[in-house]
């Protein structure tokens, strides 16, 4: 057969299939999940929660990973795919809330409800929002650090970079609680540049040089705390300075066991994933949604680490999305 005939035949089939597939339909609900970076700790645990709950609810889940926090265009394309796939609801953790907003609103206009997850698209038309109480995470850090320091002394903060809402909430929760409950503790410095462990080391070294009488550190995330602990140990000051943090990666678990951390306040990431899926199913069935599901923070310290139920917090070590 000639090549040209082959092409003709192929395109005829293609057209036929295009028409047929429009008819195909199934009863089962399909939920889409679009996240920025599935390989990072937070999103791995979040995806785990969504997936487990989807198995329980008996709905089909389509997981899409933009690949990195920076891949906005890729995420927008993937949401476009989910709209065409005519999923019944989409859970979105946005790479960038503002830039993903147009496509999210397009989904809503197409009759697909959107559940905002942790970093939601910046639209007021969300069916529901799932997140953690980040203010409370800061508050718990203040209470445990204040108590450990005996209610007096100087504290430095590694507060993450500007423009991250959750980091703002955590820092505010810490500052306001400290001012209200531990008036004799003063915050002497706040670093807004460090985001990684290496930057955390440098920032902490500088702070230790500048304030030799520091009694404690607030750190927004456990990676920064790991940097701070390294700097404190290098300076030989680990018996006099307390470090508090948020999140509970394996690194943070190790630091708690070793007594390097006084406490960490954590969010129920798996639990958020479960809630997100539940709200998505409700929205898909046209039932009434909770406008916002905010899961409370949990305090973990060396004493209760072994007994704390982590099944709602992190995915099992062997889980792969």
């Amino acid at each position, binding site marked *: 057969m000639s*090549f040209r005939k082959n*092409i003709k035949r*192929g*395109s005829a*089939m*293609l057209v036929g*299939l*295009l028409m*047929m*597939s*429009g008819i*195909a*339909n*199934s009863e089962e609900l399909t939920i889409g999940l679009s996240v920025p970076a*599935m390989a990072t700790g937070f999103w791995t645990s979040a995806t785990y929660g969504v997936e487990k709950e989807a198995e329980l609810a008996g709905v*089909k*889940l*389509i*997981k*899409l*990973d933009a*690949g*990195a*926090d*920076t*891949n*906005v*265009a890729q995420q*927008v*394309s*993937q949401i*476009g*795919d*989910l*709209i*065409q*796939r*005519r999923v019944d609801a989409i859970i979105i953790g946005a790479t*960038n809330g*503002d*830039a*993903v*907003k*147009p*496509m999210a609103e*397009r989904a809503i206009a197409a009759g697909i409800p959107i559940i905002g997850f942790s970093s939601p698209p910046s639209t007021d038309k969300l069916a529901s929002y799932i997140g953690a109480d980040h203010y409370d995470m800061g508050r718990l850090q203040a209470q445990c650090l204040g108590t450990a320091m005996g209610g007096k002394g100087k504290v430095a903060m590694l507060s993450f*970079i500007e*423009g991250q809402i959750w980091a703002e909430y955590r820092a505010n929760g810490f500052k306001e609680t400290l001012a209200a409950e531990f008036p004799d503790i003063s915050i002497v410095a706040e670093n807004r540049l460090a985001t990684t462990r290496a930057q955390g080391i440098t920032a902490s070294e500088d702070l230790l040089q500048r304030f030799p009488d520091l009694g404690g550190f607030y750190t927004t995330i456990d990676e920064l705390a790991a940097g701070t602990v390294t700097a404190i140990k290098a300076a030989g000051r680990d018996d006099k300075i307390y470090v508090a943090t948020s999140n509970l990666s394996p690194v943070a678990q190790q630091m708690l066991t070793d007594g390097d951390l006084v406490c960490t306040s954590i969010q129920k990431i798996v639990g958020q994933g479960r809630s997100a899926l539940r709200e998505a199913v409700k929205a898909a069935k046209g039932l009434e949604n909770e406008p916002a599901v905010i899961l409370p923070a949990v305090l973990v310290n060396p004493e209760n680490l072994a007994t704390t139920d982590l099944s709602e917090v992190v995915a099992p070590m062997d889980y*792969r*999305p």
Partner: protein
Amino acid sequence: MMTNVSTTTAQQWSPTGILSGAAALICLIAASIGFSMALPNFGSPGNAANILLQFGPLALLALGQMCVILVRGFDISVGAVLALSSVTAALAIEQFGIFGLIAAPLTGLALGILNGILVGLLSIPPIIATLGMLLFARGLALLISNNGQVVLVTGAPQMQLLDFSFGQFLSIPYSALLTFGVFLAVAIFLKRMRAGRRLFLIGGDPEAARLVGTPVTRGFVLAYGLCGALAGLAAVLILTKTGAGLPTDGVGMELNAIAAAVIGGSLLTGGVASPLRVLFAALFIQVVQSGLSFSAVSPYAGEVVMGLVILIAGLLDQITRRKLQTITMH
């Protein structure tokens, strides 16, 4: 060596020459049929429009790669140039309204010409020249965008951008029409205009081209300038889709673009280019990506599949090429 040039050019127009690049089309048809049968709604007209809406940036970047691969080069800076172009255009739109959009292709063109000068005039190897440009453009994009925050276009221009992105003519998204138009223009330029045809000569054998008095350096600047401008146009499409300049976006896109150009029949040894085949190849990659999004496979498994698919398509291209070579020799 001159014979080499003439055979490549002759092959472009012979029936076997056209067939030798059919790998991309075969892959495209096979993937479209396969996914349509396996996945509900994949073959819907709506999803066809969706894929056409998505494939523009990759297709334009691949077309640019095709131009520089034609003259034995390649350009790994296009992802960063795209990011910087989207930021400069977003900033310009905030200043001057929607016409600021022109800043994107202009930025791309300027950086592309610079690449061409580095490679053509100063004889810096393409990998070094365009790696330098990659870092320069990425750094500049982060600097002028308030440390990597997206630059949001606000007000009426934002609506104009999104209206363009979601607008359709006969069910074909405007962005796809723009992409097709650009492909047509580049095809006409390469095959019908003297400056374009010279690029085949330069890619076939730069030394011979120089000996017969072809302005080789100008050819390099032209090819890289075109590649940069096309990256700027890809930035326009991304701007219309998101309504924002994205300083951190486009990482790794240059490699997908090179893959699409090679699946589309470009030879890394230069002298061969077919915009039509590159168009099919870019569509093919987008169809596979969309298919993977549709199916509920793990995203990691999806990446493995994508890698294998590119390898198989490349292999198929090699096989058809070799087969035809033996046929023409007998």
